[in-house]
């Protein structure tokens, strides 16, 4: 394996991108991803906050401490992972993290590994999805993505600018990918307009330092209130409104997440006033 360190976008030419490596390094070690060439993108991806524009290389620790960042995003970063991980984790890498589904991480030949069945659907799935779960029942682990979805963030890449929602797709039989990013496409920046008010609430299996069981982000702007959830679907999940929680399709052992989501949505909206 070789490690390249380009200093400009023009030098990019294939390989596996690595920023903080908190996701890439364990996946490489476990043989879930493979690469001949690693491309350290820290010299290419912008870092820092300018107005509503956030460099994709900004760490979660930096976002957590920056008063210019909308509350929902700041709180999502503060409650994500552990201090050391937040020091290492880039915003871009966070948006592109893979599922924590234990079958997938343990390399069961499930649909996301191009196999034929979802092992979680008829196996252990207490932590799995309650929406969009009929093909793959994994639960998207990013607090940060849910916050940005509620904030209606936009993503600028080396090729285009899209709404954050368009970065994600539900996998299906024909195409198992969970993002719409093309090979070699790099996320450069995320843009968010300041909301009138926003918040992020997170249920965890312990008080600190845990993936979201259910995360609820809510943001109020002139155009209304957007509510987005983490940990409930294979991708970050936007609700049409609070009553949308009732349209969940839980698995036999994920119905509890519907109750948690309902409660957190109610609390989040109360907080926004």
């Amino acid at each position: 394996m070789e490690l390249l360190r380009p200093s400009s976008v023009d030098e990019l030419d294939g390989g596996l991108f690595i920023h903080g490596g908190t996701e890439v390094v364990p996946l490489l070690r476990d043989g879930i991803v493979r690469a001949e060439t690693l491309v350290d993108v820290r010299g290419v991806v912008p870092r820092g906050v300018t107005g509503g524009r956030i460099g994709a290389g900004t760490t979660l620790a930096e976002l957590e401490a920056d008063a210019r960042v909308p509350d929902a995003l700041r709180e999502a970063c503060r409650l994500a992972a552990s201090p050391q991980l937040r020091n290492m984790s880039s915003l871009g890498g966070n948006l592109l993290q893979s599922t924590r589904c234990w079958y997938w991480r343990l390399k069961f030949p499930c649909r996301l590994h191009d196999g034929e069945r979802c092992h979680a659907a008829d196996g252990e799935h207490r932590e799995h999805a309650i929406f969009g779960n009929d093909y793959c029942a994994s639960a998207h682990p990013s607090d940060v993505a849910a916050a940005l979805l509620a904030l209606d963030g936009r993503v600028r890449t080396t090729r285009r600018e899209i709404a954050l929602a368009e970065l994600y797709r539900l996998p299906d039989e024909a195409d198992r990918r969970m993002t719409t990013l093309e090979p070699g496409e790099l996320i450069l920046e995320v843009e968010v307009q300041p909301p009138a008010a926003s918040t992020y609430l997170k249920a965890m299996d312990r008080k600190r330092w845990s993936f979201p069981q259910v995360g609820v982000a809510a943001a109020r702007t002139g155009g209304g209130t957007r509510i987005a959830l983490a940990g409930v679907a294979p991708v970050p999940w936007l609700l049409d409104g609070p009553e949308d929680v009732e349209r969940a399709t839980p698995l036999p052992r994920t119905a509890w997440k519907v109750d948690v989501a309902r409660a957190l949505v109610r609390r989040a909206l109360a907080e926004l006033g």
Partner: protein
Amino acid sequence: MKLVINGDEHEVDAPVGASLAAVLRERLGLTGTKIACNEGHCGACTVMIDGVPVLSCITLAHSVEGEVTTIEGLRDHPLVDAFVRADAVQCGFCTPGQVVSAAALVAARPTPTEEEIRHAMAGNICRCGTYPKIEEAILHWRD
């Protein structure tokens, strides 16, 4: 690859993909840094890069640009005595990582509150449950 560790420069030969933790322990004999989970969950392998705590088990050695501080570099830090005074050690396996995280915390906030301690130390798991004593050690690190 060149690494600056605790102020000393080292020329190291290791394949790309080697973690900083493995290089510290196996190539440089700096075995104070522990590896427990080896996947970013426990904090046993915490070191600082330019004063910022990171997990050396999931840091690629070849991607390190700044100066590394390991527990060996904190030998004379008052926190070490504070941990002993508070009896904040049981099996001791998590302790080097705890001290590194605590050293970064007190450098940024010399008189941290309990809440600040809990937030900053949340990434260091102690299987033996010495948390109350660790908190005590950090609250009284300069006594």
